């Protein structure tokens, strides 16, 4: 069964899972670069990060968190099924994991689309100005969809700071350190400042990181789903059993890793500015 260059089957299995762990270390360093950038800018633009973060839909983020944790569970069951040579269960739970992964990505598409509509995507069209003039082409603030959790909290605790609080924070921010870096027109650019230049200082950095981090995470999910198609193909051929399940197990490690990355992304991107019961 084992490949020729290994002495024993155990050695091969051992090498494969060790290799997977080394690969995950590499992944940690990859995402680590992004997290360091986040840390630096969260420190530098503390208020802007809070204000920008409040525009994210916590309900969708929470839903996705549950979906991903659920997919880790189905993946764990799939690994267990492979170890016990339960072919049908393996296939079923691989499919379930794929479905949950696809659900996550679908929700991400909804969230991204909303960001495009609200001009909160970094680039020439970027506009984020909660305390100033509304952005052209974007409906006014109260028409922005407050998320379900916000609505629930509003109902339960009375009107709570959601997007309107964001605006207050924004106003506060200009009196703070960031005021010095208010988006003045670039030197040498004649005429009026663009909407992008008048945006809240630091907010575009936040949204850049939001898209870079969730984008890299989503890319890993897409790769994961692709790999699952491959595993599924071989699973239907009956390749995996109690004697040989290393690929399933290693893929499980990868999938859990991607899940854990999200467990860090969710609070850092969605939850940094949510309070119950008023201001602090």
């Amino acid at each position, binding site marked *: 069964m084992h490949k020729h260059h290994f002495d024993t089957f155990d050695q091969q299995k051992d*090498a494969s899972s060790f290799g997977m762990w080394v690969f995950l270390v590499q992944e940690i*360093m990859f995402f680590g670069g992004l997290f360091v950038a986040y840390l630096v800018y969260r420190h530098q633009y503390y208020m802007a990060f809070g204000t920008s973060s409040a525009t994210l839909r916590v309900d969708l983020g929470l839903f996705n968190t549950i979906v991903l944790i659920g997919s880790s569970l189905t993946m764990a069951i799939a690994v267990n099924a492979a170890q016990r040579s339960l072919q049908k269960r393996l296939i079923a739970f691989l499919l379930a994991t794929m479905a949950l992964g696809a659900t996550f990505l679908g929700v991400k598409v909804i969230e991204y689309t909303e960001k495009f509509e609200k001009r909160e995507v970094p*680039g*020439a069209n970027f506009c984020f100005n909660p305390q100033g003039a509304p952005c052209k082409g974007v409906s006014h603030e109260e028409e922005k969809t407050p998320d379900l959790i916000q609505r629930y909290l509003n109902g339960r605790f009375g009107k709570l700071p959601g997007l309107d609080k964001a605006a207050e924070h924004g106003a506060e921010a200009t009196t703070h350190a960031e005021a010095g870096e208010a988006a003045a027109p*670039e030197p040498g650019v004649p005429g009026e400042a663009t909407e992008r230049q008048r945006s809240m200082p630091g907010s575009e*950095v936040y949204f850049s990181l939001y898209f*870079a981090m969730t984008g890299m995470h989503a890319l890993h999910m897409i790769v994961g789903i692709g790999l699952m198609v491959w595993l599924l193909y071989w699973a239907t051929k009956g390749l995996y059993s109690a004697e040989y399940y290393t690929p399933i197990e290693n893929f499980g490690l990868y999938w859990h890793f991607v899940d854990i990355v999200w467990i860090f992304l969710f609070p850092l991107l969605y939850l940094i500015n949510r309070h119950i019961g008023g201001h602090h």
Partner: protein
Amino acid sequence: MSAAAASGHLVAGHEVMPEENYLSVDHSLKSWLLTVDHKRICILYLLTITFMFFIGGAFATMVRLELLTPAGDLMQSDTYNKAFTMHAVFMIFFFLVPSIPATLGNFLLPLAIGAKDVAFPRLNLLSWYIFVIGASFAVIAMITGGVDTGWTLYTPFSTNYSNTNVMMTAVGILIAGFSSILTGLNFIVTIHRMRCPGMSWFRLPLFVWATYATSLIQVLGTPVLAITLVLVALERGFHIGIFDPALGGDPVLFQHMFWFYSHPAVYIMILPGMGVISEVITCFSHKRIFGYKAVAFSSVAIAVFGFLVWAHHMFVAGISLYAGLVFSFISFLVAIPSAIKTFNWSATLYKGSVRWDTPMLYVFGFLGLFTIGGLTGLFLAALGLDIHLTDTYFVVAHFHYVMVGGMVLAYLCGIHYWWPKITGKMYPELPAKAAAIIVFLGFNLTFFPQFILGYLGMPRRYHAYPAEWQVMNVLSSAGASILAIGFLLPMVYLVWSLKFGKVAGPNPWQATGLEWETSSPPPEHNFHETPVVTTEPYHYGEKEREI
């Protein structure tokens, strides 16, 4: 065997090539392009990086030609910017980083630990293909106009202002980086899991220890470069704002992230060279290495310290004075493991029976040049002096003393030392010795004047300079042409030796180490029987003592 040992490598003349070896199993092109044999993958890399080396060399030629005269007359400043950038991009990412690990590392690692192959042979082949794809991107970027940002790709110039092929070059480097990560991963697992019976950690050849330390850096450092390049590409392509000061981003963060990889990367480039030197110096002193454990652990120490010193490239970039102090201090610390190695190598020579074969000439060249390169690094690690020397030719000279005087010499040393093992043929000794001496002389003539130029204040990356510096620049360019001859010569006689060289036999140097116990070239699966190790490494001279 002891009679053969007494008569030295002359015995090679009586040897016959083994009929069954990894080269003779199949001659078709397909068998090469689909091979999973680590020895053949070594050859694939060897051809690829040699090609890359000559592209990088062509740009070096352009740079040295321009600098013959004080006026910027041969090319315009824009062209010159591209010339030095492309020189560095090809030499660093497509030659130096893969050089020893991907060629000699690939060939020797499984042999040296008594394994049939690396842990993941197909991944190994995939790494080569990924490397070739990355290199193709860089070559296409070069053909379609080149890139002018300097190899450091500093933002916001690279993201917002340069109108050259930054994107394609960055993608090429990113792809080659994945190849580097996968090679490192493969080697780490191989060293942990594939050692033959009896091959304990402290019986590993020092080349393996050096490769291990290198692989650690490849796996831990390269991903940070990868994400940094992704952010640069996103910023250039989609105008997101992470490093752009106009959008509130911080270009200094880019420098931190870039150097977090790129400082350790110089250890990716030098550590395997140190491994080669350790092997060769013991063999040609015919004496056990002095301080085995110290040399082994100093490799790991260099890898670890190497991750803590990156900001010494940024002393004038506006980092805080206190950060500067700490980074300066730790940079000095890196000198300790490097010095441990140098002292141990020198002590190995003491009372050894030193032979002056070509690989040993390169060892002596390495020892001298690496020492100069290392000590001038201390000048640059000193906060105050660095302010004077930053971005001058002093830095250029320092870097080339370590990278060319150190790494390229070690690479040539290793290629000559293991050439009989890889090809089964001896290279001709006389032209090889001549080439080694030409390289040494040409190198010093090229780069020593640059220390003086840098000390006098000549900045790097300009195509024109004041007339009083012309003499030194002419010396440097003259040296470069001598150096070029030294690099071209091995191309000729090594290829010649494939057909006309003497048959080497399994162990022409009477070296210890498992790779010398199998035939030259080795059979497809390396050993006819799995070897069992019963002795410490480098038991030179012990056989004679027994008799």
